[in-house]
């Protein structure tokens, strides 16, 4: 542990001060994007501690959607990296979020994050987020998982029917498990850069 840096008492405390939406808006300079976030979305490959979705329409009116998944841990960076790599199966960007008091260990192994194209963030006790590695955009590696997530988002975020040719019962499972009776709140354009 870094001797000077105050640390979070628990992973829960760390997760509670971490705002993925604000962090992504700042780090990716997303202005004019709507966003939504959710904790512990089940039914995918692993259960991300947080998932954030950003979207906007391009000049032709087509919707552009970007998905971000986060694994929050105080210090076990190798385990977090393994988990975050699972989320790269369905998310465009996947991150490990660590307590800043312990991030030096992960920074020493930054090449592992670079190779896996997994982002690395750390959070200070005051909620400040530090960027150590910003991943490149990459197509999620599982078509199946990507489809499940997108189908769920289409229905519950964008109000569209998922009865399309590739739809299947598994996506309905995700819908039932993770979106059941929880109001969807979108937070459009709240941060001006």
């Amino acid at each position, binding site marked *: 542990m870094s001797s000077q840096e105050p640390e979070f008492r628990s992973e829960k405390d760390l997760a509670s001060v971490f705002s993925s939406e604000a962090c992504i808006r700042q780090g990716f300079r997303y202005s004019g994007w709507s966003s939504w976030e959710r904790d512990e979305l089940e039914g995918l*490959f692993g259960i991300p501690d947080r998932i954030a979705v950003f979207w906007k329409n391009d000049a032709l009116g087509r919707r552009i959607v970007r998905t971000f998944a986060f694994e929050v841990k105080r210090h076990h960076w190798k385990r977090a*990296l*393994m988990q975050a*790599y*699972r989320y*790269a*199966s369905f998310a465009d960007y996947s991150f490990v979020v660590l307590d800043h008091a312990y991030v030096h260990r992960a920074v020493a192994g930054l090449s*592992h994050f670079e*190779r*896996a*194209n*997994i982002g690395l963030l750390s959070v200070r006790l005051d909620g400040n987020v530090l960027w150590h590695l910003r991943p490149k955009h990459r197509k*999620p*590696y*599982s*078509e*199946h*998982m990507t489809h499940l997530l997108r189908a769920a988002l289409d229905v519950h975020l964008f109000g569209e029917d998922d009865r399309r*040719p*590739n739809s*299947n*019962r*598994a996506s309905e499972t995700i819908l039932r498990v993770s979106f059941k009776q929880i109001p969807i709140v979108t937070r459009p354009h709240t941060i001006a850069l």
Partner: protein
Amino acid sequence: MARLYHQLGHRFQWSLSSIQTDATGDGTIVGPRYMAPQKVRAIPAALRQSSLFDPQFFLPNSARGKLPEYSFFPEVLSGGFTTEEWGPEMARSCADRCLSFQNAYEFEAVVIPTRFYEGMPSNFISKQEAQFVVPFLQSIEASGTNDRPVFLQLILTDQMLKDESYRSELLNWVTSYPELHGVYLVYYVHNRQKQITDIQFLIGLLSFVGAIKSSGLSIAIGYANTESVLLLCAGADILTVGTYENLRMFNLKSFEEPDESPRRGPTPRIYVPRLMQWIDHQYIGAIGAVVEDLGEYLEDNEHSVRMFEPTYNWHFTKPEPYKHYFVSFARQFRRLNSHGADAIVDAVLEECRRATQGFEELNEAGLVFSPESGGGHLASWMTTLNLWRGGR
């Protein structure tokens, strides 16, 4: 040459069709837990004649699934099995009925069943003798069918196999019966991972199998996972493949009364022969993105082609991952099995090295596998083979 059998259980039809359509097996090990007698009868006679029947007495007081349909099952026969009431008469009646069933269906050998004992009980041998071995041998003698091969089933725990003196005692006991032609071995590893990485256990297992072979007995190994390739080195005669994990990693769950807790289906995994590992299917896209020829990794066959159709719904109730495994593992097994006794250890070591190299290349390309899908077992397997060979 070792033969590859299918351990039949839940979804036994997948195994039977794989044997018939894809020629992935030389026989089967039939178990009553998931197969009613009429289903056993429906197995083609020629296949039954190269199959063993495992009476599955592991928990004699728990008749789950189709077991109540078998009059010889201890719980059924005694109307509530207890050790105290299981006297010589009951044991003999059980043996007569079970033997008669095995003879009627013309299995390739008679299997003397056993029950499961945890740990390393000091009275293991005397209990096995009294409850099953002696009554069955008497029944065989009395029935005049002693021209048929007889296999003794042993279920050994990891503690038993790791303990050299316990192993010796078992060997002395088994080899003391001139009536026996072979051993049908099942091993139970406490708290096991998907792949066995306990080197001391693996060496104990190989030593035991090698010693059984040296004594002139045959050995069939049930409920085996991909560690079968190691057991080839020790000279096992019959090894097994199976659909679900409970047919490839022996445990008692499906024989115990189910608890109330909700059960989750297994994660669909695909066997990747190049990596000698069952990999969570979600990783396949990531592998495909970094290797030149995914087909070479997976040893493509018609089942894998179906799995990679865009509309394929990965689920543990779908047969393709298992049928793909049967085809790809049977090929790998036969390729390794074609090496003679002197060369097989080197061939398996080379296969493990190649798999290790495959994992290294994937890690280098940025893939991060969870331990259950990773290559952590390979170093243990290579160490096991080197130490076991050195100690022979």
